[in-house]
């Protein structure tokens, strides 16, 4: 989208006639007083730009901006779907949000899931990328293996993991062969959260791995050669050369992963339904329960607004912090 907009912007800002300097003299010799044709080159360029961005603009307006505005509007109402009533209640839903006794545990579960996912996903993706960046035989096979879950259907992936994580499932079967009595993964509060995080990490780690791999391959080899001449160890090279030079990619992947972690739903719905207790009831799942299961659509919309604010705040924070640690940004 940004490229299209940029192109449109460039077209729009270009002076008429396609060159810098004053407007061209009319060719009919009538002088400046003649009426200029409506479809000047500048206008044509503007129109072309708008035509190019129109599909995206339409999509964004209908599927992003309009629902966003409607969610805020709904959050100010009590919407009884069955009765077909839609009553304005002002800030009542926001007051209920502040007093909701379940919300603290929901936010705690959301934070646990996000932190666990971001730490595990990014560190594992970086580790895999570094390992697969070596010039060794067979790395292509491993790259494909690690990336393949990304293209697998999320629900199918989760259902298979659901079977594996059962008390008498594949994982405990494997543990049993080495004499370990595995826990009932999805029924213990701590193990359920760990399970959901691990399922999600393996699902998407391949994507971040590929992004890191591309970034690693963009780091000039001569920097490592120079560092080696200076006697820097491999670890020192990694921290002083690799990390700073791939920091823009780290920023990108961390934003994508944080935002993605806050939107987790299918894994929770399939694996734990928010349990045991409310230990894996993350914000999106809670929102779904309130709106679609308990029919509190107004309160569900209020929780959506809260989710939007959290995602926005975290993204802005990450974007602001980039100057501190992203190479080329300071």
């Amino acid at each position, binding site marked *: 989208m940004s490229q299209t907009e940029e192109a449109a912007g460039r077209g729009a800002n270009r002076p008429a006639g396609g060159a810098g300097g004053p407007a061209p003299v009319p060719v009919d010799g009538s002088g400046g007083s003649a009426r200029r044709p409506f479809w000047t080159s500048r206008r044509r360029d*503007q129109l072309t730009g708008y035509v190019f961005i129109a599909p995206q603009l339409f999509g964004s307006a*209908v599927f992003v901006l309009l629902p966003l505005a409607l969610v805020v509007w709904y959050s100010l109402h009590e919407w*009884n779907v069955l009765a077909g009533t839609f009553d304005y209640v002002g800030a009542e839903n926001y007051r209920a949000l502040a007093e909701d006794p379940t919300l603290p545990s929901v936010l705690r579960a959301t934070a646990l899931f996000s932190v666990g996912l971001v730490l595990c996903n990014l560190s594992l993706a970086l580790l895999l990328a570094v390992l697969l960046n070596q010039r060794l035989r067979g790395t292509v096979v491993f790259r494909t293996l690690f990336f393949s879950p990304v293209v697998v259907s999320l629900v199918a992936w989760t259902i298979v993991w659901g079977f594996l994580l059962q008390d008498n499932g594949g994982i405990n079967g494997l543990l049993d062969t080495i004499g370990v009595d595995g826990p009932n993964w999805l029924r213990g509060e701590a193990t359920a959260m760990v399970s959901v995080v691990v399922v999600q990490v393996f699902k998407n780690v391949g994507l971040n791995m590929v992004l890191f791999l591309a970034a690693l391959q963009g780091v000039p080899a001569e920097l490592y050669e120079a560092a080696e001449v200076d006697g820097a160890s491999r670890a020192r090279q990694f921290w002083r050369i690799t990390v700073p030079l791939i920091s823009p990619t780290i920023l990108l992947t961390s934003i994508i992963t944080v935002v993605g972690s806050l939107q987790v739903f299918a894994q929770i719905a399939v694996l734990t339904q928010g349990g045991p207790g409310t230990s894996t009831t993350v914000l999106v799942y809670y929102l779904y329960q309130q709106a679609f299961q308990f029919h509190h659509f107004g309160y569900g919309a209020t929780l959506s607004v809260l989710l939007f604010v959290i995602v926005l705040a975290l993204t802005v924070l990450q974007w602001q912090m980039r100057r501190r640690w992203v190479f080329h940004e300071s």
Partner: protein
Amino acid sequence: MRIGRSLRLTAVALVGTVALAACGGGGDDAGDGGPASLRMTIWTANEQHLALFNQIAEEYRKSHPNVTEIRFDPLPFDTYTTSLTTQIAGGNAPDLAWIFESSAPDFVSSGALLPLDETLRGTDGYQFDDLAPGPLKLWQRDGKLYAYPFSTSPFGVFVNTDLLKRAKQKTPAELIAAGRWDWSTVLAAAAAVQRETGKAGLVIRDFDYKGWDNLSTFWTGWGARAWSEDGKTCGFTAPEMVEAMTTLHRAIFVDKALPGPGTTADFFAGDAAMTITQISRASLLKEDGFGWDLVPLPAGPKGRYAVIGQGGLGVLKQGKHPKAALDFLAYLTNPENSAKLAQFFPPPRQSQLTAETLAKTNPKLTQEQLQQVVIDGITTGVVKPNHTGQAELSQQVRAALDPLWKPDADVKAVLDGVCATIQPLLAK
């Protein structure tokens, strides 16, 4: 600046177009006299059930050419009510909908459904007074009927007699004859099956440590109930409930009579010796499968009892063709079709609730099974837990009961926790 203004104008125009399109929606709503395409949401995708529904619908359409289509739309059982309400919220309400007993109070009290009395009474040959008052109770408000109790299905125990014999256990018929068909015997037999064969002993179908309302088929034998008759007081801390749940906990974690949490066993695939479920699931039994029997729920410490699940059929006020839908409902549930549907869905018609009548359409079940499980069950049965705001209550109970499903759980403390959680909701 001009670009900014133009963009704003474009955005406003786009939103305006969408709003106009939305306002113009629903133009296909032909009047009830005109062509109507009806849609009914149901929970079952079973081929035999659907074939019968479609056959009845075809018959109806022959005499009602204005009804161009009658579509039965199966929604997944687990998320049925959620999917239905989402369709209603999205402006895509079906014309008719199957409603579970758990959400009956919500649907009946909200005004989402149209009253049926006038149409049903006014339909020739309908015999409205043949409907038994007991099954109608849940679906009435202020003397009006808002959904037809399409299926009043008692819970029974399907038994794999082959597995019981392998474990050297007596068959239910023998136990019933000896007057020993009670929970202590059944749980002991289930534990023996697990020990001897490695298969599951007893499965409370659709419970799976989440659908706790199915446990009412167990605790009712102890005289326990989830909440009081008026729905205001929590019943989980009552001594009967504590005793029932203590027995169940021991059966699961000590005797292994029931598969533990996170372990699946499908009775109809031959993985379990016994399962508690409704008669409509008899269609899952395979012709060349194992030897089986269907018997009433075992007696509890408080004696014999029965639990029934109900499914109502209602016409949604927000549907496109409510009048046509009312007319079709009257046809679908008339005496003739009610008799056909009785093989899967026991009707509320007193004249059809005889073992002889039901046996005609239930080739898989004997008259004795039908009398003991279905007819006696409907007469004496307690309806599964239901309450206004059931979905939220149900979720709260599920979460609060979760700590019970561990070997070292303190049953009394967990049940105290359930009441502490749901009492504020019940008191509303």
